[in-house]
């Protein structure tokens, strides 16, 4: 429960910077990988909704994309062996698919710098969340 509140707090704190580096998506990815699937879905809905409200393009657009990708990843998770390289690769794919989907769906602007920054910053954030949430650095599952 405390961890759930921590995710929510981290989400709110990261939202103002989400236009530069998509920390919200990193947190969501972490939740999908580590937490209960139902919570992951609700959290995806929250992330999408808050993103839609904070960076308004079309209410519901990001929410649908986030929920769909979350459900997809929850399904694929059972087939993945999540060690650090595959985790980073999975996040990269998820992020690129999400960016492409939003671009197709609502013609959202594609910012190459943001994409590179987000991918580069993901590993330390994931390690940090692992450390804070579970008291470990990222390890093989």
């Amino acid at each position, binding site marked *: 429960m405390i961890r759930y509140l921590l995710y929510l707090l981290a989400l709110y704190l990261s939202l103002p910077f989400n236009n530069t580096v998509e920390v919200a998506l990193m947190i969501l990815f972490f939740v999908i990988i580590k937490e209960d699937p139902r919570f992951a879905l*609700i959290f995806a809905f929250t992330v999408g909704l808050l993103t839609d409200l*904070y960076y308004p393009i079309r209410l*519901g657009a990001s929410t649908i994309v986030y929920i769909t990708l979350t459900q997809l990843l929850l399904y694929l998770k059972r087939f993945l062996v999540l060690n650090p390289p595959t985790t980073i690769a999975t996040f990269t794919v998820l992020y690129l698919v999400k960016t492409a989907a939003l671009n197709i769906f609502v013609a959202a602007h594609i910012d190459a710098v943001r994409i590179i920054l987000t991918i580069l910053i993901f590993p330390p954030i994931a390690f940090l969340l692992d450390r804070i949430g579970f008291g470990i650095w990222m390890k093989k599952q």
Partner: protein
Amino acid sequence: MRRQQILLFILLFSISATPIFLSENANLHLARHLSSFLLFPFRITTAIVEYLAISNARIEKLEKDVNQLRLENAALKDRLVVDTTHFESNSYTLLKASVIGRDPLDINGYLYIDKGTSHGIFENQTVLSVEGFVGKIKHVGASSSIVETIEKQGFTVSAIDVSTGIHGIVKKQENLMFLYIRHDDAISVGDSISTSGMSEIFPKGIFVGSVHAISESEDMFFKNVYVTPAAQINRLVSVYIIQDTSVSPLRD
């Protein structure tokens, strides 16, 4: 578990899809209502930051105003008698007069002013400037008077050192001197000298000048105390005459 997850997904998907199919106005309306409470922390933070920014700007403006007022205050103090003297008055009034001339033989010794008996001026009334003590009325005409200033050779006024309370006499000799100060009197450079009131002419508490030098003399009892006059006589364009409302013009 798996079924619950699928149902939850369908539910959330449906909720998310609903705004997509709403009209643009309804979509905006819904977004506004949702953001009013979901983004409440950001609104509070933004409001606080804006408030701090505005407060900061206001503080800077007020500091500027204060500095400006300080400058103005300092400039105004140079013009006000009451702010630059220790003049204590209950029954005195001040009459302003303009300096209309000077004695060509003693430029700073005598001043001609544009007030005379018709304005209630009589001999020996005390004359001030914005900076402090100037002198006394020496001669009165119907509409003009002559002021004998502290720069006139031989002019004397009984005075007191404000910080130590030592009495003496300020006299214009070659320099302006504070006389009858004993060798062991604790007078220091920078001390303020004001009228002592030990006189029938000058009221107590008018700033005469400040001690600028002290030297030992050959005199057995007294040392030399040099005073810088408060008023710069050669710059005066107007003066104030102290009128004692409780005293008749017969005083001498």
